[in-house]
C-alpha cells in the first residue's frame, strides 16, 4: 500500500510539476500569474484528442507534435492579443491578470461548446504493460514515462535558460525588463516566446495527464490548475527547481492523505500546508529571503 501510494504521488506530482513550470516560467519574467495556463492545459488535450481521431489517425507522435505547435501558437497569440497591449501601458499587472481570466473563460467555454461534457477514451503509450512489484503494487509504464518526461523537461529547461541565447534573454528579462529594452533586446518577441514555451509545457502536461487517466473530459484541467499553482508557490515562485519539488511534495502528501484518510481531508491539507508554509517561510522552499531595498 505504501509503495502504491508513493508511486501514485510521484506520477501525479510529475503532472503538477510540468504545469507548475509553465506558471513559474511566465511568473519569473513578468511577475504575472498567467490564469489562462489552465485553460491551455484543457484546450491542448481536446485538440490532441480531436486530431488523434481525425487527421493523424492513430499516430500518437505526429499528433503530439501538431498539438505542441498549436499550443505554442496559442500561447504567442494570447500574449500578443490579450496581454501585451495592457502590459506595455505599465498600469501594474492587475489588469493583465484580469484579461488573462477573460481569455481563460473564452477558451474553456469554446472547448465545452466543441467537445461536450461526455468522457471519451484517450490513447496512451505502452498501454496495458505494467510492472508488478513484490508486494503486488502495479506500476504502469505510462507513470514511469511521465516521471522521466518531467525530469527531462526540467533539465532541458534549466539548460535552455542557462546556455542558449534566448534562454539567457528570458532570464535577463526576469531580472530587469526595462534594462533589456535599453540593451536593444527584442523584449516583446522574447515575452511572446516565453508564453509560447509556457503553453507548450501546459500542453505536454495536459496530454500526459490524459494519457495517465486514459480518458478525457472537459473537467480535466479544473483541479490541476489550482494545484499546480499552489506547487509553484510552495517551491518558491519563479524558481523552476522549486515548482518541480513543490509539485511532487504536494502530490505525495495528497495521495497519502486520501489513501489513509479521505479525499476531503486531502484537499484541506494540500491548501492548509500552503498557507502554513507561507506563514513560516513566505518565499517558499527555494526562495531566498530578499533584503528590502529602501
Amino acid at each position, binding site marked *: 500500500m505504501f509503495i502504491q501510494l508513493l508511486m501514485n504521488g510521484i506520477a501525479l506530482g510529475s503532472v503538477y510539476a510540468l504545469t507548475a513550470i509553465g506558471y513559474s516560467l511566465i511568473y519569473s519574467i513578468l511577475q504575472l500569474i498567467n490564469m489562462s495556463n489552465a485553460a491551455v492545459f484543457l484546450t491542448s488535450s481536446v485538440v490532441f484528442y480531436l486530431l488523434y481521431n481525425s487527421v493523424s489517425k492513430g499516430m500518437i507522435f505526429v499528433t503530439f507534435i501538431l498539438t505542441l505547435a498549436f499550443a505554442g501558437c496559442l500561447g504567442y497569440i494570447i500574449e500578443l492579443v490579450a496581454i501585451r497591449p495592457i502590459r506595455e501601458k505599465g498600469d501594474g499587472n492587475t489588469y493583465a491578470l484580469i484579461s488573462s481570466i477573460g481569455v481563460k473563460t473564452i477558451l474553456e467555454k469554446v472547448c465545452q461548446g466543441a467537445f461536450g461534457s461526455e468522457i471519451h477514451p484517450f490513447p496512451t503509450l505502452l498501454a496495458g504493460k505494467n510492472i508488478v512489484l513484490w508486494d503486488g503494487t502495479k506500476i504502469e509504464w505510462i507513470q514511469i514515462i511521465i516521471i522521466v518526461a518531467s525530469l527531462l523537461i526540467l533539465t532541458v529547461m534549466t539548460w535552455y535558460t542557462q546556455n542558449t541565447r534566448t534562454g539567457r534573454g528570458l532570464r535577463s528579462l526576469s531580472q530587469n525588463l526595462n534594462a533589456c529594452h535599453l540593451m536593444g533586446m527584442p523584449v516583446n518577441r522574447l515575452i511572446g516566446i516565453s508564453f509560447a514555451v509556457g503553453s507548450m509545457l501546459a500542453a505536454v502536461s495536459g496530454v500526459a495527464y490524459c494519457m495517465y487517466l486514459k480518458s478525457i473530459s472537459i473537467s480535466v484541467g479544473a483541479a490541476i490548475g489550482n494545484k499546480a*499553482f*499552489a506547487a509553484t508557490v510552495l517551491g518558491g515562485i519563479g524558481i523552476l527547481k522549486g515548482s518541480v519539488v513543490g509539485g511532487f511534495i504536494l502530490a505525495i502528501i495528497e495521495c497519502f492523505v486520501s489513501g489513509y484518510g479521505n479525499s476531503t481531508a486531502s*484537499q484541506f491539507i494540500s491548501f492548509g500546508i500552503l498557507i502554513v508554509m507561507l506563514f513560516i517561510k513566505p518565499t517558499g522552499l527555494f526562495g531566498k529571503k530578499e533584503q528590502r531595498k529602501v
Partner: protein
Amino acid sequence: MKNENKFTEIVKRLGVRHLIFFVTMIVLAIVPLFVNSYVLKIFQSAAINMIFGMSLNLLMGIGGTVSFGHAAFYGVGAYTTACMWYHFGWNFTSAFPLVILFSAIAGLLLAIPMSRVTGRYVTIITLSYAEILNLIMRNWTKVTNGVMGILNIPNIKLFGFELAYKDEQYWFILVLVVVSYVMINWLVNSKLGRNLQAMRDDSIAAEAMGIPLFSHKVIIFTISAIFAGIAGALYAHIYGYIDYTVFTSNLSFNCISVVVVGGLGNFVGTIFGALFLTILPEMLRNVEFLFNYRMIVYGVILVLVMWWNHSIPGAKIKAKLRSIFNKLIHRNVESVEEV
C-alpha cells in the same frame, strides 16, 4: 494655470462623484414602478453586487490588495444568517450583528498571513483561503447542513415587518447600498483612508511616515469582509437557498471584474460596473443565436474592457474623448503596487 486650479477646487468640494452617485440612486429607486418582477430581480442582484463590489474595491482600490477569495466572506455572511435561521429560527435583523462579527473574524484571519508576505503571494493565499472556507461549508454538516445546502430561508424581517414584496426588498437593499457608500466614503476621506491609500501607492514610504502597516492591513481586511458578509446575508434571504456551489472562485473573479471595470478606487464606477456586469448576461440570455455562447461573450468583453482602460491604443482613443469633457471626469487610480 490660475483658473484651472480654482475650478478643480470647486469640483473637489462639491464632489462630482457623489452627485453622480445620488442621481443614479434616485433613478434606481424609481425603477420598480416601471418594470416586471423578472427585471426587478436582476436589479436586486445588481444592487447586492454593488455592495459586494464596493467591499472589494475598498480592499483593492484603497487597501491596494487584490483578493481572489472575496467570495469567502460573501459565503460566511450568507451561511451565518442562514444557519442562525436554520438552527435557532432567528430572522435577518437578529442575525445581523453575528453576520458582521463572523465576517470580521474571517477578514481578520486572512489579514494575518497576508500582511507577512510581499505582493506576489497575495493571489495564492486568497485563493487557498477561499478554497478552505468552501471545503468547510461543504463538510461541516452539523452546522451548515453540508452539501445539502440550506433551503427555504425566509424573507428579510425588519423588526417584525416582513419585506414580502420584491420592490420592498429592493428598496431595502438600495438603502444598504447608500449606507455602505456613505460609510465607505467617510472612511476614505479620513486619516485612516489616506494612510491606506499611501500604503497602496508605496508601502516603504508609508512606513517611513510612521504608518503601522500591520494594524492598518488588518483593519481594512476586517471592514471589507464585513461589507462582503452583509452582501452575502442579503443574497441568502433574497434567493432563499444557498449551498457551497454558489461561493466559488468564479464569484470572486466576477467581483474583481466588477471592480476593475468600474475603476479601482472609484466607488461610483463600481456601481456602474455592478449594473453593467449583472444586466449584461441577462440581456445575452434573450439573444437567440448567442444562446450558449453567452459566457464566451462575457470573456471577450472582459478582455476588451481591460484593453480599453489599460492599454496604449486604448489610452490614445480615450485621450481624444477625454479632451472633450476633460474637466468633469475625476481621474481613477492609475496604478497599483505590483501584484
